[in-house]
């Protein structure tokens, strides 16, 4: 097996991975950086983020307000020292992107423009039309091209972390083009592998978001934190699940049920605001968890609209007018027209909540370090505890910048004066990966089909770990995922050739998703309260006495995982009431 020696290996080349790589290259031009990704960088799912990125820049805004919005939006499950660090770094990172050429929308005077977003008290979301993530990703990718010290390994599927002497010292990966395994020996490894939304059948996430990075860390002994918090975005296209950005509502779009009523006013987000005059942090600009949950209640009451794509509510943007829609929401208009045949200038568009984002992930501290020495993580795959129980829209694009950079700095610190690696031990570990793949590859007595297992997993997650959860449903979910993980040991490939074998990669991705699904269901079963995106019908109240703490799930092979807890860091904002009734109580 070929060995590639490097100083830092980064797994994932989306927004977080690229930001990390650039930060490393800038800090020390002599550093050898390996950027490993199963897709070319510009295919990473950062490109699909639409609305924008939050950072305090305008004179009417303040760090305290961004802090309060984030902590309240996260239902007090955010670590407040982390939030503090984040809000101060956010504007610097967004300015850095501006200096790298990101085409942010502008005010007439040439300064950066900001737009309103759900759950935010002030306009503070920087945006590039409704393709903010796309522009951030491409700006980072293009900027990274000027650093020769960044060696990209595009279309290398990372498999296992190499952990020896109690610290992470590398990773194995398969070159997809040849099917050949490689081992990367590195002084530090940074995982920036994105979320795992594809474990659900209906998701805004691209096909690549299968939690490989999370599962890799989990298998290597690092805990997954707060995995039960899965964000539903309130406005997805009902057939493809494609995202219609929160900016639709930020710009003034309204949500209607079948009776034409702006039903959010019935769920603690009223009273009604005038159409076309969106007010911050109320009605349609409530936080995502509340708005998605309101849909579920409308569905129970029979107030949703029956369409050929299932039960929907209507997002009405007609009053915004064609000019504003073209200028600020061109992608949304195109998506609705192409995939649903609806012109949002002329008609309301049917939408429904769709799985969007994992608040949980690899447990990291404010330095982006995991409990496993030498292993760092940033972006959606990490849980640095910024987002708590519910992420505010437009915080995640900034999160990957702030903590991508932070991970780079921490890794730099870590690699100073490390003892030499025991290459014999690392080679032996890599050989284990080789064996694992060989077993999967050459198994002929398997009985389980990959697509069959995947469908059962998705159905289980939707049925038992959706917007509202119950003890009974979660017990069923935990048992079923456990069964599926066991059956996964008998999965059989149809394709046994070497070159770009997506049958093999989909099987490996399924393994990753099952590991993540286990952490989601187990965490959700253990959390007997309702907080943010985790809503239990049998425990409808938040329980700060018992659950103002993070769920930590530890991998135990095929056995049930170990669940532990970690206290939430509270510095200045004691748990309070989340109020989205606006200024006009």
């Amino acid at each position, binding site marked *: 097996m070929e060995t590639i020696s490097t100083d830092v290996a980064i797994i994932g080349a989306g927004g977080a991975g690229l930001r990390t790589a650039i930060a490393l290259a800038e800090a020390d031009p002599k550093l050898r950086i390996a950027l490993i990704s199963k897709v070319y960088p510009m295919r990473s799912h950062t490109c699909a983020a639409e609305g924008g990125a939050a950072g305090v820049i305008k004179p009417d805004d303040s760090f305290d307000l961004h802090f309060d919005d984030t902590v309240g939006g996260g239902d007090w499950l955010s670590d407040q020292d982390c939030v503090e660090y984040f809000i101060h770094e956010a504007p610097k990172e967004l300015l850095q992107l501006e200096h790298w050429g990101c085409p942010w929308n502008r005010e007439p005077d040439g300064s950066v423009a900001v737009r309103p977003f759900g759950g935010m008290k002030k306009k503070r979301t920087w945006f590039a039309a409704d393709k903010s993530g796309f522009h951030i990703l491409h700006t980072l990718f293009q900027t990274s091209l000027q650093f020769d010290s960044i060696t990209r390994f595009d279309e290398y599927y990372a498999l296992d972390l190499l952990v020896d002497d109690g610290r992470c010292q590398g990773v194995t990966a398969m070159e997809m*083009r*040849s099917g050949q395994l490689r081992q990367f020996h590195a002084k530090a490894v940074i995982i920036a592998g994105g979320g795992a939304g594809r474990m659900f059948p209906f998701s805004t996430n691209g096909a690549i978001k299968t939690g490989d990075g999370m599962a890799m860390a989990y298998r290597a002994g690092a805990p997954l934190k707060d995995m039960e918090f899965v964000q539903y975005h309130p406005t997805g296209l009902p057939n493809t699940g494609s995202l219609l950005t929160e900016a639709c509502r930020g710009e003034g779009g309204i949500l209607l049920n079948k009776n034409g009523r702006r039903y959010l006013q019935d769920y603690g987000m009223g009273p009604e605001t005038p159409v076309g005059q969106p007010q911050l942090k109320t009605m349609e600009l409530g936080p995502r968890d509340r708005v998605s949950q309101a849909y579920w209640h409308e569905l129970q009451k029979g107030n949703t609209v029956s369409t050929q794509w299932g039960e929907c509510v209507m997002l009405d943007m007609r009053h915004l007018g064609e000019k504003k829609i073209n200028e600020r929401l061109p992608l949304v208009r195109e998506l609705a027209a192409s995939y649903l045949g609806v012109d949002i200038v002329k008609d309301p568009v049917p939408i429904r909540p769709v799985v969007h984002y994992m608040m949980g992930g690899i447990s990291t501290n404010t330095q982006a370090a995991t409990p496993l020495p030498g292993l760092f993580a940033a972006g959606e795959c990490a849980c640095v505890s910024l987002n708590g129980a519910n992420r505010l829209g437009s915080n995640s694009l900034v999160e990957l910048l702030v903590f991508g950079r932070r991970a780079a700095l921490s890794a730099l610190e870590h690699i100073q004066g490390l003892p030499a690696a025991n290459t014999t031990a690392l080679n032996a570990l890599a050989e284990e990966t080789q064996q694992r793949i060989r077993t999967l590859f050459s198994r002929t007595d398997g009985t389980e089909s990959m697509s069959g297992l995947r469908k059962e997993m998705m159905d289980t997650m939707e049925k038992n770990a959706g917007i509202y959860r119950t003890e009974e449903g979660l017990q069923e979910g935990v048992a079923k995922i456990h069964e599926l993980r066991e059956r996964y040991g008998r999965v059989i490939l149809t394709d046994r050739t*070497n*070159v770009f074998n997506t049958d093999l990669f989909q099987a490996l991705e399924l393994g990753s998703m099952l590991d993540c699904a286990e952490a989601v269901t187990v965490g959700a079963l253990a959390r007997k309260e309702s907080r943010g995106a985790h809503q239990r019908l049998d425990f409808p109240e938040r329980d700060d006495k018992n659950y103002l703490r993070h769920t930590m799930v530890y991998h135990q092979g095929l056995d049930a995982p170990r669940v532990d807890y970690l206290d939430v860091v509270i510095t200045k904002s004691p748990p309070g009431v989340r109020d989205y009734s606006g200024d006009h109580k």
Partner: protein
Amino acid sequence: MSKPLIREVPPTSWYFRHPRYLRYMAREITSLFIGAYCVFLVFAMHSLAAGPSSYEAFLLTLRSPASIAFHVLALVAALYHAATWFNATQKAMPIQLGEEFVPGNLISGAHYLAWAVLSIAILFLAGVF
């Protein structure tokens, strides 16, 4: 070990693959007629310089069916070539006034207009009107 498959582009027949390539080739071929007409003009000047009898003979050949056919073809080619050129101007020379770009049709339209005005002026000078 991996042997990528190279699907060669047929060097002499690729433009049959799609109508847009045929349109492109048509545009390129029009330049042959424009070139031929230039040669023809040089020839006309030469016969004019050689004296009245030479010029008379030249005018006579102009009336032959082959000559008329060539002129008609050359005119069609020139018109088509000019149209593709004018249509291209909006892509090659976009004009931004304030924030907005001037609509492309306006830029191309201005070229058509200028063409018409110049043509009328030349015809006027030639004594047609």
